[in-house]
């Protein structure tokens, strides 16, 4: 199960990068609301990816 969570973290990083790319692309297409939405989704993906792997302050 831990291995699956590692894999999910990598996929979330990929998803975050894709969301950011689509967000910048949407900005070029004058879809500002979609751009803001995708940038937020990208940030949430990266946050979830790092939180899955980050130990608590006392665990390290």
């Amino acid at each position, binding site marked *: 199960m831990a291995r699956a969570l590692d894999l999910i973290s990598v996929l979330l990083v990929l998803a975050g990068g894709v969301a950011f790319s689509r967000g910048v692309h949407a900005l*070029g297409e004058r879809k500002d609301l979609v751009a803001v939405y995708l940038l937020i989704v990208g940030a949430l993906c990266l946050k979830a990816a790092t939180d899955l792997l980050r*130990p608590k302050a006392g665990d390290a």
Partner: protein
Amino acid sequence: MTGAIQEQRRRLFLAEVSRIVPGLYGWLATVLLPVLQRGASFWSRAAALLALAALIGSFVLSARRPRASRLLGVYGFVFCCFGTWAFLGALLRSDQLDAVRGALGAVGFLLHALAWGAAPRDPDAEALDNLVPGVALQPRHKPTRLAAVALGVGIAVALAPMALAFGVDRPSASLLAHALALGCGVLVIGASTDVSLRVGKAHQLPAWRARASRALWPFSALIVAVGIALIWLALR
């Protein structure tokens, strides 16, 4: 003995001066010169002055209040610089900027970040060991194949927004697109580095249930965001 103490104090003073010099240069190049233009609003000039005050305050407080100094030097200064740029409005359009001056100012801000990211040079460094909050640094370990994949994926997808930003041809949004793409790239590289350093270290991490629960709020927010998007698509 007195000479040694004076020499140590001089070194500390120079270290603190060198910490604020890059930020001061970035401020001169990218904040002061734009607000001196004719037509700059009162609020942009006020924010620029506040940024300078935050930088000077961080220098003054560095010895007695290191945490407050850090808050002023990093967050206060950068927040006020952003405020200045926001209040400048149309004066900050890409066709009105000096590219060379902007690039040199960006180098100044990069050095500012590196200077504040460096470890404190105080001789009583052990007492300030928790100056930068966060978990303790992990010892090195042999990276797994998944770690290399995570880093490779991160670098590859971090480059994509920066390439796509060149496709934004609106003058009012092109600079914003490049700034956003740069920020996104930094975030993705940072996250992929974090992930690649930690994957495959299950024995040093809490159980999978604890790990999953730690990521509960970003996952919940993601589900809410996807739900909103689905509702919006259904109503269109």
